[in-house]
């Protein structure tokens, strides 16, 4: 629900300004308005000026912002670990901190930069890792003699080995050995052993044949193949050790200084937010004035607290809200515990205006209802209730996942209730096992009655949306729009009555008067809503028919459950039958969770909310920690 807001003015002596802002920040319920418009009468504007920070404030802000950027830089070099804050007062030791911070920054930056250089080299060397591991057993198996050279290869196509053997045989006269192995990443590596006088020629020929030699970093150029492999291994071990050492140095620095710098950062945040907020304050010759918004329910309490904390020198006054203020009023949404999980569906919508409605309670009421109407199976409902309760317990700390399963538990409960009404328990299994019969409607066979029922639900939902739109127009005192919306509702009702009378649901005698009413109302509709107003009616009719999806999706669900049971029966074997039915029911449950969720949300976003939600609200952003 949209919280009722109050327009507030806080006045006090100028020397208390920073203490008051600091207090408001600690309380965290006051939204400062940086614009004077709407708060001060035109004639009084000349007496009030924007608070101009003095030289001391400005130099303090520059000094603190510089310090904060350095502290942030220092933390960017340190490992991200949860730290406890030290109970020190940074204000007293701020000059010493600035001095020592410079030295610490140089130290940590140096360690970090060296570590980064080593990390880059390590990642480059490690890219050879799998190839070296594959080469190692090959190198162990060959004799190392002074006149023998080794050539490492990467073979793109493992099948080329035979061709390569024949090629080398031809050019070396059989004075070679070719061994191959497969690396852990699937690459085929080869090792050619050849006498040193033939080595250069073989390398050239391999280049011509487009068989790449194993590449090593340029710094390895002066080494022999065996030395390269050994050096690479040694270097990887050496660099890993160095990186570990740097990590230890940074970690020990963090343990020693981290809590102090964390406290300094918190203090800097608080001080800077007070200094920044002071630029949105106004002043007269003697006083400061803070204009802003807060929840109406908190006004008295904050007034008392200000009075007690500042010995009656600071006064809070609630100002009267004018019509033009409504556009500027910030919006804060607050819902009862039941509706709070449903906020994950409304968070993706733009914030509604202050005069509009919070969509959360509506989605909290209708979403589970539509979900239940679509899935409508007592067995599936029971399973989903158990699953969602287990998941809520398992993911207690992850709010988003826990909220999603809370919604599922409510939706599953509705599914259970509708399952009883439809007489469905894992499809028609309930009927076979314990004679479960439909209490309300047999949706597998009564397709048309179910269609009428869902379209009727659509009529109620769409008309509720249209009526809320009418209520908002009345609240905003836009008469023309209110009349247009009312005529819209009346014409929709007339059209529906006309269609119902054609289908024999209403007496045929009503047909002519209904048409007459539509004809009379149409000019008024055009006058109040313009030439496009009739289009809105056609859209609304389309929206109502769209609710037929509740029946359509429900029908697919019940038919799939029926097929699962039927197939299980056809197997003639109890174990295979249970397995087949279980798999198909599982598939149906998975589809039955996703599909009704998406379609139920669509019915809200497209059919319902477009009738009354007015986007464009300004977010309530209180000054807080």
């Amino acid at each position: 629900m949209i919280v009722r807001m109050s327009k507030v003015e806080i006045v006090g002596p100028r020397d208390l300004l920073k203490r008051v802002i600091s207090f408001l920040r600690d309380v965290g319920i006051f939204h400062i308005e940086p614009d004077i418009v709407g708060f001060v009468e035109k004639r009084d504007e000349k007496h009030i000026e924007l608070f101009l920070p003095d030289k001391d404030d400005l130099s303090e802000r520059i000094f603190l912002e510089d310090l904060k950027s350095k502290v942030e830089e220092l933390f960017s070099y340190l490992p991200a670990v949860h730290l406890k804050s030290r109970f020190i007062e940074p204000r007293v030791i701020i000059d010493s901190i600035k001095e020592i911070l410079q030295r610490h920054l140089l130290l940590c930056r140096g360690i970090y930069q060296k570590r980064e250089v080593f990390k880059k080299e390590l990642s480059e060397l490690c890219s050879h890792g799998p190839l070296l591991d594959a080469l190692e057993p090959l190198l162990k198996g060959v004799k190392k003699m002074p006149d023998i050279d080794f050539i490492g290869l990467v073979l793109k196509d493992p099948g080329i080995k035979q061709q390569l053997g024949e090629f080398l045989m031809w050019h070396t006269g059989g004075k070679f050995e070719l061994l191959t192995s497969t690396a852990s990443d699937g690459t085929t590596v080869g090792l050619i052993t050849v006498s040193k006088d033939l080595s250069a020629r073989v390398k050239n020929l391999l280049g011509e044949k487009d068989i790449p030699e194993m590449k090593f970093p340029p710094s390895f150029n002066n080494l022999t193949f065996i030395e390269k492999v050994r050096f690479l291994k040694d270097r990887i071990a050496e660099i890993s050790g160095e990186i570990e050492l740097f990590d230890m140095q940074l970690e020990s620095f963090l343990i020693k200084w981290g809590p102090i710098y964390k406290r300094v950062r918190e203090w800097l945040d608080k001080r800077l937010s007070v200094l920044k907020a002071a630029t949105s304050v106004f002043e007269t010759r003697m006083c400061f004035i803070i204009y802003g918004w807060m929840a109406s329910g908190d006004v008295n309490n904050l007034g008392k607290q200000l009075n007690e904390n500042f010995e009656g020198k600071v006064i809070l006054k609630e100002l009267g809200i004018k019509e033009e203020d409504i556009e500027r009023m910030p919006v804060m949404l607050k819902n009862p515990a039941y509706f709070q999980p449903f906020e994950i569906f409304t968070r993706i919508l733009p914030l509604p205006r202050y005069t509009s409605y919070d969509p959360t309670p509506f989605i909290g009421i209708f979403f589970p209802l539509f979900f239940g109407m679509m899935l409508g199976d007592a067995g599936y409902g029971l399973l989903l209730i158990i699953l969602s309760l287990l998941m809520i317990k398992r993911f207690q700390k992850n709010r988003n996942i826990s909220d999603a399963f809370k919604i599922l538990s409510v939706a599953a409960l509705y599914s259970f209730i509708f399952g009883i009404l439809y007489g469905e328990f894992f499809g028609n299994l309930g009927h076979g096992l314990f004679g479960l019969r439909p209490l309300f409607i047999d949706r597998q066979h009564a397709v048309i009655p179910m269609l009428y029922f869902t379209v009727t639900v659509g009529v109620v939902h769409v008309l509720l949306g249209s009526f809320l739109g009418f209520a908002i127009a009345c609240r905003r005192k836009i008469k023309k729009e209110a009349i247009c919306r009312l005529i819209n509702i009346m014409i929709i009702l007339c059209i529906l009555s006309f269609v119902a009378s054609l289908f024999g649901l209403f007496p045929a005698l009503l047909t002519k008067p209904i048409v007459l009413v539509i004809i009379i109302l149409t000019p008024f509709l055009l006058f109040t809503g313009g030439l496009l107003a009739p289009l809105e009616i056609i859209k609304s009719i389309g929206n109502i028919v769209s609710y037929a999806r509740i029946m359509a999706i429900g029908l697919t669900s019940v038919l799939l459950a029926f097929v699962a049971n039927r197939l299980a029966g056809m197997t003639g074997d109890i174990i295979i039958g249970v397995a087949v039915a279980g798999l198909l029911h599982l598939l149906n449950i998975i589809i039955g969770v996703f599909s009704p969720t998406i379609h139920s949300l669509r019915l809200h976003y497209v059919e319902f909310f477009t009738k009354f939600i007015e986007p464009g609200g300004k977010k309530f952003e209180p000054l807080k920690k």
Partner: protein
Amino acid sequence: MEKVLVAFAAALAIGLSAIATAWAQSKIGSAGAGTLAEKPELSATIIILVAIPETMVILGFVVAAMILFGV
């Protein structure tokens, strides 16, 4: 023969509208995915735009049901 024609008419009603919806949603969906990459805050608008053509297949389904059940 009449039964075949009725079934064929119902199939056409749902089939053609389903193809039309699929075509429209594919176009809107790909454009929407591109938009979301640049402006994630428009997700609600994109969902609405993608969902709009679904009405066609629902209408097709209603018409098919009416044809089949002789309403």
